[in-house]
């Protein structure tokens, strides 16, 4: 399955500055494996301990893969896989927050 992968700014060091690259695979995991063969190191930025890194959102077309099987989410010929850094944070983890008070 040939897909197009949209790469966010912070990961373009792995793609020679390219915003969009081609890859193949029938699941998100396979697409990431394939990407890593040509864009070394990108897998380590996306996957941790066998699942998607919590700092990263991955979408197949318009769907967040966290709700579609995560790394096992299916991809089809012509799909667009989009990677975006999650935007998150907060004043402190709950336990620390209590000690601040």
């Amino acid at each position, binding site marked *: 399955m040939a897909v197009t992968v949209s790469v*966010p*700014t*912070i990961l373009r060091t792995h793609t020679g500055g390219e915003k969009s690259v081609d890859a193949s695979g029938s699941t998100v995991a396979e697409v990431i494996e394939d990407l890593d063969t040509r864009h070394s190191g990108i897998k380590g930025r996306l996957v941790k301990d066998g699942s998607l890194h919590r*700092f990263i*959102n991955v*979408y197949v077309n*318009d769907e*967040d893969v*966290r709700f579609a099987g995560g790394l096992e989410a299916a991809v089809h010929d012509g799909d667009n896989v*989009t990677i*975006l*850094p*999650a*935007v*998150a*944070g*907060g*004043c*402190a*983890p*709950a336990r620390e*927050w209590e000690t*601040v*008070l």
Partner: protein
Amino acid sequence: MLMIRRDLVDAMVGHARRDHPDEACGVVAGPVGSDRPERLIEMANAERSPTFYRFDATEQLRVWRAMDAADEEPAVIYHSHTATEAYPSRTDISYASQPDAHYVLVSTRDPDSHELRSYRIIDGEVTEEPVEVVESYMFSHNGADDVPDAP
């Protein structure tokens, strides 16, 4: 330095006040490379929490695509702290992934006055920067296309 229009500051503070005691979050888009925040987008805090925020992933995709289509980038990423000072927490720092963005924090812990501060967060290193609030970008010397060259 972050130079930002007063109406955008008022909108961020208003959003933070409205969502208090939960953390509010959003983005101000600007033309790519301009470093000029122009279009404020309030984002849903998917966590609805007083101690954590996360952009809703589906909404983020839609907003990021719209920015892409308009040749914009996130000039400012803002969120509120509702019980602590406007300084990035360890969680904020570990998630910060936009080296070109100004990370703005608004603290609403004091009901009568807010605190608004801005930071760059690059590779885990936090640098506070001054904030200059302007009425308009037209007369500020901020960008080649704003001020015509002297004849």
